[in-house]
């Protein structure tokens, strides 16, 4: 029995000092419920995905759940660092697949701007193994990816200019997305003139610290027929993996093993052997520009080491081999951790339903992918969707 997405919602991303965590979640949930055309009472299970700590609400699932009207139905709280949203979608998906419920909602939400930047860096830097990394060496999240970038550049000749091109593309897309954190285009020169945050990554290589929420309502095929939903987007592939907490225990720094393993699992389930030919759109994890370049390679869009060339040749732009991060990516749309994976589902569902307006891609296969990483390949999630 298939599971489909029947409704999606997404808040405005950005520095949202105007709202609490539950209020920003409400924006996304309300939109998703209206979009699905169901009533609040139809939803049997609520999953709240939030990485937490940066918001004053330290045990946020219950306040969010109550505010959104689901007291008594869940909440199941999940956390998988930056892949929290995908873990929430998986929890909703698997509950339906197991036959426990027919309709479930995945709510991803994060308030990140309630603490200052140094505190936010200190939370993110704890994303591996605290004692051996942050405590001793002051690792930061940009630092984790910067270490991968240093290896990728040394081994494959990837350049700072190629990384900046990812930022330029994603800002260009975000400029046309009214929900994006940054709705402005940037030039290659501006990106390359920005200061280093963690060498070799500059400020414009980094996703912003954002507030935001997204929600997706999933239902069983039986329920979809019963409700008469005429535009479900089916989940046809699911893959997950993970890697060591300690970066020093990784075999290699030129890519993310978790992406390779999760994507192969999802491709197998969805019957994909040539992702470039069989997918129309991909929303990939570009928390830093090097992450998107590694994702092209690890997802099989190009050969290992050719990710820099892939962006240079326009392979991931509209009209290219596969448009990637059409709504602006984490880089420019914003990266509220818990929301990100669910916002990727929002993007791909809008694309597959041909509701993406000026950001609409051409559909040939009516199939798209989300790729969500927690930490630096500490968690890896890939979903394939189709209509």
């Amino acid at each position: 029995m298939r599971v489909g997405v029947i409704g999606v919602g997404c808040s405005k991303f950005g520095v949202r000092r105007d709202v609490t965590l539950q209020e920003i979640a409400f924006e996304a949930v309300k939109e998703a419920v209206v979009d699905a055309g169901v009533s609040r009472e139809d939803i049997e299970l609520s999953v709240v995905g939030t990485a937490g700590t940066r918001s004053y609400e330290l045990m946020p699932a219950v306040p969010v759940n109550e505010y959104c009207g689901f007291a008594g139905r869940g909440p199941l709280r999940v956390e998988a660092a930056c892949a929290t949203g995908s873990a929430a979608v998986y929890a909703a998906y698997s509950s339906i697949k197991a036959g426990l419920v027919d309709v479930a909602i995945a709510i991803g939400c994060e308030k990140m701007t309630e603490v200052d930047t140094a505190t936010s860096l200190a939370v993110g830097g704890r994303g591996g193994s605290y004692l051996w990394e942050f405590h001793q060496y002051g690792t930061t999240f940009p630092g984790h990816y910067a270490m991968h970038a240093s290896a990728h550049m040394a081994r494959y000749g990837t350049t700072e200019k190629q990384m900046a091109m990812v930022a330029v593309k994603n800002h260009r897309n975000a400029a046309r997305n009214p929900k994006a954190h940054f709705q402005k285009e940037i030039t290659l020169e501006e990106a390359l003139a920005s200061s280093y945050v963690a060498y070799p990554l500059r400020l414009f290589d980094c996703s912003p610290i954002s507030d935001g929420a997204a929600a997706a309502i999933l239902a069983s095929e039986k329920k979809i027929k019963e409700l008469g939903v005429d535009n479900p987007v089916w989940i046809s592939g699911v893959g997950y993996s993970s890697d060591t907490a300690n970066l020093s225990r990784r075999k290699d720094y030129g890519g993310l093993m978790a992406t390779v393993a999760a994507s192969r699992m999802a491709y197998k389930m969805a019957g994909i052997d040539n992702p470039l030919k069989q997918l129309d759109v991909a929303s990939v994890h570009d928390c830093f520009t090097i992450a998107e370049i590694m994702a092209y390679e690890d997802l099989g869009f190009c050969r290992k080491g050719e990710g820099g060339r892939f962006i240079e040749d326009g392979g991931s732009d509209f009209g290219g081999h596969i448009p990637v991060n059409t709504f602006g990516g984490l880089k420019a749309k914003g990266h509220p951790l818990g929301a990100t994976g669910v916002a990727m589902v929002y993007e791909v569902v809008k694309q597959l339903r041909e509701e993406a307006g000026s950001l609409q891609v051409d559909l040939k296969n009516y199939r798209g992918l989300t790729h969500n990483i927690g930490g630096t390949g500490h968690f890896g999630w890939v979903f394939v969707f189709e209509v």
Partner: protein
Amino acid sequence: MESRTFILKHVLPVSRVERYWKGLEEGKIYGTRCKSCGASFYPPQADCSFCYSSDVEWVEVGGEGVVECFTRIQRPPQGFEFAGSGYTITVARFGEFKVMGWFKGEGLPKVGMRVKAETGRDESGVWKVYFVPT
């Protein structure tokens, strides 16, 4: 409005890897190796994650290392204000072990650069590994 101040400071249980922390004070860096299946661990751990044995031996990490990756942190997080203009986190391979440390040489390291490891305390009193080019 501002929330009430909330201080989070944890007590770290390090008794099972005490040898490591004592080693740093003596200028030595230790990893562990499982006596049952031979798996090696750095950072050290007292239990084998692969065969579940808790019979591990302490092995000194030595010789020349090769830099695999690095970054220069220009925006230090809370807790590293003492580092001022930043620090260079580096991972180098020493045989069966990969070790994280702060690079102490001039400028930035290079991937493939040969380094040796030293131990020392930073300005906040925390013992750690430093790398210097050979």
